[in-house]
């Protein structure tokens, strides 16, 4: 087991910077998910850690040892690829034993290590079977076992669940989390699936266009997104963005929309970050949009409702925008009806319109925002 650290790593393919000045420190025994859309540089990040890509600048450390120039085979870092790459003509035992044989491990030791690994992964009853006779989930575990069996310092997983069907994915998500808790490996997990990235790891590193956007706990990435990009990659349906302007009159800071305004009661943002009349973006998650019929809130109309079973997505026209709200099915208004919309002030976010950076974020706290009634004129 080991810690891993990337320091100012840049990897370029021709003119394109797949990773641009990336710094990321992963603690010993920590489970970190790297989340981003296709093309964000996630796989390049893994390949750089394992040594399959060479950074143009910057350095990679394992346990404070600089391994940037080290040959991949000498790094003691294991990677499991998306397509598993099991040997179809060898049984589970031989697949698991293969990396140990390559390392010229004594026979008795191989036997013991394979048995231990198989037991942890609950595949000890399958050792004599060939991969063709295994289910998708079992194959996944064998591939994971083959990456684990040498007891590498660091385990890297590249979209390990993306080839599985939905129910199996749910099951493996729980399995992986349990496993990591039991074996305490340093685990770096690449995924484009926000549910995987939210549910399993200790921390999430959000990657966009080769740049680290935020590294934080799943809760903080969700409730205190550093910028609009991060706010969009977690949450389903994604966060609503409402273009607004800042208004600073009488020493009161407001986020102003033609149909409503939001008072900013306290802010930790740097002086000068909020300029009267400047454009900004109000962010509100669908579950924090409240639909009513009284006088409070901004007028909106329902154009579509999407029942999901346990909850319903209500698509609203608010001004010229579509805003999605998440409500219990019993409270969903009928399509075509006119309603009033308000926002939970403990869950609002304000972003800079130009850079997308978060200016103020309530993050679940009272006293940061106060939503004011419709049309302050």
């Amino acid at each position, binding site marked *: 087991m080991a810690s891993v650290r990337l320091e100012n790593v840049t990897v370029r393919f021709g003119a394109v910077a797949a990773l641009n000045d990336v710094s990321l420190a992963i603690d010993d025994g920590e489970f970190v998910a790297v989340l981003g*859309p*296709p093309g964000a540089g996630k796989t390049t990040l893994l390949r750089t850690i394992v040594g399959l890509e060479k950074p143009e600048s910057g350095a990679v450390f394992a346990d404070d040892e600089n391994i940037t120039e080290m040959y991949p085979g000498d790094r003691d870092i294991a990677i499991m690829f998306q397509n598993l790459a099991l040997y179809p003509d060898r049984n589970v035992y031989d697949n698991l034993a293969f990396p140990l044989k390559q390392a010229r491990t004594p026979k008795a030791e191989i036997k013991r290590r394979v048995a231990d690994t198989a037991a942890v992964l609950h595949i000890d009853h399958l050792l004599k079977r060939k991969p063709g006779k295994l289910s998708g989930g079992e194959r996944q575990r064998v591939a994971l076992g083959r990456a684990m069996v040498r007891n590498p310092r660091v385990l890297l997983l590249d979209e390990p669940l993306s080839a599985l*069907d*939905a*129910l199996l994915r*749910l099951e493996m*998500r*729980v399995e992986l*989390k*349990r496993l990591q*808790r039991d074996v305490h490996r340093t685990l770096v997990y690449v995924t*484009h699936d*926000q*549910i995987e990235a*939210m*549910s*399993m790891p200790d921390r999430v590193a959000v990657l966009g266009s080769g740049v680290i956007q935020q590294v934080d706990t*799943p*809760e903080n990435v*969700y*409730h205190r997104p550093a910028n609009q990009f991060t706010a*969009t990659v*977690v*949450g*389903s*349906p*994604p966060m609503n963005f409402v273009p607004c302007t800042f208004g600073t009159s009488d020493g009161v800071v407001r986020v102003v929309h033609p149909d409503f305004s939001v008072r900013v009661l306290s802010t930790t943002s740097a002086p000068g970050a909020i300029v009267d009349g400047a454009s900004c973006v109000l962010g509100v*998650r669908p*579950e924090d949009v409240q639909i009513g019929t009284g006088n409070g809130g901004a007028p909106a109309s329902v*154009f*579509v409702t*999407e*029942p*999901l*079973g*346990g909850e319903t*997505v209500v*698509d609203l026209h608010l001004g010229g925008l*579509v805003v*999605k709200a*998440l409500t219990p*099915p019993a409270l969903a208004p009928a*399509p075509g009806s006119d309603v009033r919309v308000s926002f939970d002030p403990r869950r609002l976010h304000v972003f800079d319109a130009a850079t997308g950076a978060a200016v103020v974020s309530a993050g*679940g706290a009272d006293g940061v925002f106060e939503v004011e009634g419709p049309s302050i004129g």
Partner: protein
Amino acid sequence: MAEIHLSHLTKQFPGGLVAVNDFELVIPDGSFVALLGPSGCGKSTTMNMISGLEKPTSGEIYFDKQPITKLPPGARTVGFVFQNYAIFTHMSVAENISFGLRVSKPRPPAAEIDRRVGDIADVLGLRGMLDRNASRLSVNDMQKVALGRSMIVDPAIFLLDEPFSNLDAAFRAYMRAELKRIQHEIEQTMVYVTHDQVEAMSMADHIAVMDAGRLQQYGTPDELYNAPANRFVAGFVGSTQMNFLPATLTLGEQGAGNGRSLTLGIRPENVLLVAPGAAGATLAGKVNLIEPLGAKDVIHLDVAGHGVRVVGVPGQRPRVGDNVGLVFDPDRQLLFDDETDLAVEA
């Protein structure tokens, strides 16, 4: 516009695989129906038989009561939208949309074509980009162009085969609402094939759930979710899977079926966590694992050796290892017969 009736439709492939087995379905005129099921359930084969790309082994297909089983695909007036949108990237948006009219014989006058393209662009929200080259569009606009291209020939029905699988999550959420709105506006019969229960639930008026070539249930999203016909449907629909626990039927008196082996089904959001031993707690369990999902948590419990998932509110999160009591919402419990897997009246 047309009503579709699939009557005792069966498709057996050479080699013996029965992909679709005695499938019976009526899709009303102007409705939005999803064919939902896991891969290999026969949904795409069913779609291909509706379009004419596959011939049924037996059974009949009717459009508006007219048998069309023997008609070639081109004579069925079916509009198709595929997963890989297949638009012409060297043409403008307007040229892509008008393509079906421009190659039809007799070709309508240019003014008529322009008018039709304009109407469709309005419905799809593409009015401002008609002159743009299709290769310069975002993927979600490309998928709209593909839809527009199938709309122009005014097909009797639309068949959409997993059209959103290539779009990223944010676009998918946006397109779900858009397609639903478009279908409401054009009021055409739409059949939508998907393995994604969220897409089926959120958009369709009615959903036909398939498994192993057979129709499992045909109903509204609400019926599927709250009154699943069998254990398969109960487990397939819902983003956090329903909990299944073994149960035995005990009747007060010596009744028929006393001691029958059943499975109790309860959705994770219908289980309330309380203090262990609290009044009303039906069962006791121990917290095994917590999956934070942002808006909610999924709490995994061990209940006498059975895994039970409960949806929790992030503010009131128990700790791993805590002992808790479980209260099941009595109105939301379902029972399934262990022999037939069918839902039984509680």
